[in-house]
């Protein structure tokens, strides 16, 4: 399933006026991601958050990054979808140029969606940026 673009996600989320709808949207967004089979959830792919586990696989094809992620928590999975909408199928330069903090602000994450604390979101962003930097 194709993830919507970042602008579309920003628009969609702005449309909802209660938290339940926002959360439902985020959860549904997470369902766009195929997840990873148990065998692919290896310790070296684990990005440890305090409250839930996140696994990340990165591949490069024709100079673009392809990411596969999975989380054992569905809201975290949805938050990961927000991140992948920004980073997937992008070049290293495009990843580094993207204003992720501005994007999070536009999504109004702090106020309307559980903020980025403790859920591994920051850790994933740092990891992806690190990969882009090393590329």
């Amino acid at each position, binding site marked *: 399933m194709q993830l919507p673009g970042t602008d579309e996600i920003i628009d969609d989320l702005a449309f909802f006026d209660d938290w339940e709808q926002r959360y439902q949207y985020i959860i549904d967004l997470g369902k766009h991601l195929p997840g990873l089979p148990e065998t692919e959830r290896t310790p070296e792919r684990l990005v440890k958050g305090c409250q839930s586990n996140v696994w990340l696989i990165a591949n490069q094809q024709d100079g673009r990054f392809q990411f596969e992620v999975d989380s054992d928590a569905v*809201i975290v999975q949805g938050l990961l979808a927000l991140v992948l909408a920004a980073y997937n199928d992008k070049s290293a330069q495009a990843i580094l140029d993207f204003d992720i903090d501005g994007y999070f602000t536009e999504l109004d994450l702090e106020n309307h969606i559980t903020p980025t604390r403790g859920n591994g979101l920051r850790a994933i962003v740092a990891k992806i940026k690190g990969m882009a930097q090393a590329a």
Partner: protein
Amino acid sequence: MSLDVAALREQFPILHRRVGNNPLVYLDNAATTQKPQVVIDALVDFYTQCNANVHRGAHQLSDEATRRYEHARDSVARFINAAYREEVIWTSGTTEAINIVANGLAQLLREGDEVLVTELEHHANLVTWQQACRRSGATLNVAPIFDSGELDTDAFLQLLSDKTRMVAMPHVSNALGTVNPVKALTARAKEKGALVLIDGAQGIAHGNVDVSDIGCDFYAFSGHKLFGPTGIGVLWGRKTVLEDWPVWQTGGEMIQDVSYHEATWGALPNRLEAGTPNIAGAIGLGAAVDWFSTLNISDVQAHEQHLLRYATEQANAVDGMRLIGTAPDKIGVMSFLLEGAHPADIGFILDKQGVAIRTGDNCAQPLMKRLGIPGTARASFSVYNTTEEVDVLFKALNKAKMMLA
């Protein structure tokens, strides 16, 4: 007489705030408790009226600060029934208190010696001993629990031997709420000649801690889980043991005579309290202890048991809800899992409804592994919680179930 919870709540300003559009329902008391106005006042009053360094000033402010600071020590000593006031050592919290003992012990341990802990430990009462054993070549034994979270005392006693130098166990498990029979186990450990440390992080706020009655050598706890400020805690230690205990930090306050190349150590409690202490924190903790001591402790315990029973009954009626930790003797904590819902997701959705709980490994990774679960959602209760708040918790959980199904 029963506890007047409404009147009690009036004393906690934070309990009147809202989170989003909802009144705060604070059920994360095992992580930290809220503070009554008297504790907040004690902090503000210290800084506005008599801020000065203690034990050294040649002026009135320092005298007043010292008096308040040492009065707090008296309050704590009385609260836990210590035989001597100088047995109360201020620390930054439970973790530092245990570190003082574990670091000292590491210097005394030899290969072949043993340290005994339990599977219930949170990291503060595990990593400390584990590292002391690694440094000294001693062996760390871990007493098992049953699946209910109850300590297997027979197995515990089998692991006790005359090689056991130290037994360290929690008074109450932070993750499961299990209350351990610390007095009986301490007696058995003392028969073998072992030192005993009780990790009182969770035990202290439920009242009736009497270190003389328990018979242990050390009791460690944090102020912030006892309605006091963060950054202050207590190591209580038996005078005869603490007098010779290897010093922890060195520097000012803890010395007697100093030359450029040598120093001798001062007397208790100062020898284990290097540097300028957390004066305001100690005074705040003293105020918290004085406040808590005004409550009727059997009323407090009856109220907390009532809350836990009330919550447990509702939990048992929820389809797909599984309680983690069902030991017969349990207090303050309801850890649980909801079928098909990750604890983190539950926490997020409860938060949006104003309900504050803890989710995750509860700072007890090996225990979670032992129980075969990645973590739990944990609601923990304190004196000021109400059955109405428990109802809100379950209403919020119901919504989480619907959304996460």
